[in-house]
């Protein structure tokens, strides 16, 4: 249940960026290797946003896929967590290209500040 502390970090980054303005929306990017449970993160947002500048804000989550590059055959492939075989040559030496994202991409603030 470390989603609460992760959400708290995301909110403080958002608040620092908004610099006193109300936050209308937050957009985060989460990969399957981030170790974050999306439902738990949404729950944490609902718990932490009230009373903060992000109260009532929209919370958007962009989910990424696990992506590997195979150094043997050059294939780039998406795969579920726990299955790392290259679908082209069968090796498991794939280099991680994406899937561990856990970041605040952008926020929206009123355009009058």
């Amino acid at each position, binding site marked *: 249940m470390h989603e609460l502390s992760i959400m708290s970090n995301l909110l403080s980054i958002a608040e620092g960026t908004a610099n006193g303005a109300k936050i209308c929306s937050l957009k985060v990017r989460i990969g399957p290797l981030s170790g974050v449970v999306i439902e738990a993160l949404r729950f944490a947002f609902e718990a932490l946003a009230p009373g903060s500048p992000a109260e*009532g804000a929209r919370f958007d989550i962009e989910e990424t896929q696990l992506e590997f590059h195979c150094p043997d055959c050059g294939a780039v492939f998406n795969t579920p967590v*726990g299955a790392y075989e290259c679908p082209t040559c069968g090796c498991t030496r794939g280099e991680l290209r994406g899937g561990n994202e856990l970041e605040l991409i952008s*926020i929206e*603030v009123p355009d*009058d500040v």
Partner: protein
Amino acid sequence: MCETCGCGHPHDHSHENGSTHTHTHEHTPVRTIEVQIPALALNQRHADQNRGWFRAKGLTVLNLLSSPGSGKTALLERTLQKVPHAAAIVGDLQTENDADRLRASGAQAIQITTGATCHLDAHMVMHALEKLDVEGLKTLFIENVGNLVCPASYDLGEDKRVVLLSTTEGEDKPLKYPVIFQNADLVLITKIDLAEAAGFDREKALASIRQAAPKATILEISSKTGEGMEAWTAWLAD
């Protein structure tokens, strides 16, 4: 409240139920600010600071991860007796019990009690380092809070990650908790002396580990009998 953007200003809308009742409201325009900052950016900064400090002191640092009861402390009790110039930082929610056990080996052991926190973070480790007498030390073990989920997300500044899987757990645990195994440098199968009694299926466990952690070295060990201890200490020295 605006259901589209939650900004507190209702959007323009009209009803499509045939009624002539149509109304609009002024909506405050919003602007987007690109952020692109990792949620754990602060932890990453602390981890990088720790890493720099470890390098400056010539310390090799290992982060030990497993579920509770897989034998992290027992492994360290035996390891600290065999490996010279080593110390441990150990994380638990409560009690100094593990540090007390480890100190009995004669090595330094510093306890972090996290309260309700389910993982160690780089900042907690940074404060534990203030209590460490680093003079002459070469190896530092960080025994994480027993948990196969949350500690995976937190870099502590370590050189290597060691994930333990005991023979009394399910052989398919690496497939159930793939994230923590995915970036393991070493997977240690512990309590190998209990394998037969526990009906441990070695081939199934090895296949699960290879699938979840294809790049990890795999070793088998018993902290009770000492079986496999040579290979483990050789891996540490490597």
